[in-house]
């Protein structure tokens, strides 16, 4: 399918650009996405048509290219997405981990494609609710995304009404949020638990990053098999012993990096490394 106002060569160029910059694979069945999202961007930036927008992108690799990649990226997220992964955290993953860390009192949880922050704030609230003793530990909640825009929003902890309607239990809304005009703001003591940073997963990760739990959810689906493999291998090397990996509901390690094992008898799939290697 061709995209309105763009040549075949433009579409190929855009696909390659996005792939090179963010590893996201936009396959041909998603050409309509290119069209609807770029049309919005063109309108926002006052371009007469998509052709002139893309011509500018070809010339410049700075601001406009970043805006274009933003526009083509899916940031869809919600609080406690899929519910069960958070049950698994609460019942299966965190209790033994916290017991094992009583001496070091260290715990690092990394939301590796955090979008506007709902995922890591869900973890922060879950810790507050279920493991209050841990709140005094130097818990590191680290959240990163390739998109500077979403990181900036996440760090503010401000959400629209539609966003707090989505997946957030009403009891947590009243406990952890305050009205802020028409929006809702997460309270400072929760917001301060999290450190947000812009990070392209394909680039180097902070050298001291040794997470106990990695949330790599709903981002691998956009990558090629080779990129998925590479990322799963890199996570394997930074994960602390006894650590856990959580993926999105349509993602798996199976057949991609089989060093991972699926936790048995879990309410939802999550992954870990066998204690003694084969």
């Amino acid at each position, binding site marked *: 399918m061709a995209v309105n106002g763009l040549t075949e060569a433009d579409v190929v160029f855009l696909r390659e650009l996005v792939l090179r910059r963010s590893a996201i694979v936009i396959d041909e069945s998603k050409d309509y996405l290119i069209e609807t999202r770029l049309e919005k961007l063109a309108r926002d930036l006052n371009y007469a048509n998509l052709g002139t927008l893309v011509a500018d992108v070809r010339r410049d690799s700075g601001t406009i290219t970043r805006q274009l990649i933003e526009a083509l990226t899916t940031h869809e997220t*919600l609080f*406690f997405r*899929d*519910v069960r992964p958070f049950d698994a955290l609460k019942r299966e993953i965190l209790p033994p981990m916290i017991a094992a860390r009583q001496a070091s009192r260290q715990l690092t949880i990394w939301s590796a494609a955090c979008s506007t922050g709902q995922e890591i704030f869900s973890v922060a609230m879950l810790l507050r609710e279920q493991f209050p003793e841990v709140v005094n530990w130097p818990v590191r909640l680290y959240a990163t995304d390739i998109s500077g825009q979403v990181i900036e929003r996440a760090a503010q902890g401000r959400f629209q*009404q*539609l966003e*707090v*309607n*989505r*997946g957030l*239990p*009403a*009891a947590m*809304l*009243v406990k952890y*949020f*305050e*009205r802020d005009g028409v929006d809702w703001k997460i309270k400072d003591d929760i917001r301060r638990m999290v450190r947000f940073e812009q990070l392209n997963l394909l680039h180097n990760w902070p050298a001291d990053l040794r997470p106990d739990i990695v949330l790599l959810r709903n981002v691998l689906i956009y990558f090629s098999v080779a990129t998925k493999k590479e990322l799963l291998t890199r996570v394997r090397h930074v994960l602390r012993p006894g650590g856990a990996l959580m993926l999105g509901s349509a993602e798996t390690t199976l057949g991609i990096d089989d060093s991972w094992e699926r936790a048995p008898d879990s309410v939802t799939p999550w992954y870990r490394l066998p204690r003694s290697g084969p």
Partner: protein
Amino acid sequence: MKAIVIDDSRAIRILLKRILVAQGFEVFEAGDGRQAIDELEKTGCIDLALVDWNMPVMTGYEFIVEIRARAEFAAMSIMMVTTESETSQVQLALDAGANEYIMKPFTDDVLKEKLMLLGLSQD
């Protein structure tokens, strides 16, 4: 699964009913809290009540208070679906015994995600 949709706006009832039916619910309707209680006395305890706040005859808040005083409906999940969006109001509904709360306007996904929170979704 069975649900009752309580709202004085027929348009909202149709909207909510459509989403619930697609989720596999059998759906009853009522235009205010009193009608809903009359209906529930016939159906007995069902899985879910979606209830608006501001309605004639008996408000959603009064409905919750009355239903929660009756042990035979203890197992029914109640979700408020309303334009009221002050923290104090959400708190009031929860204190009265609402299990969940949706602020209008909302999308289909919002309702489906809340059903999942209540363990009332099929997937």
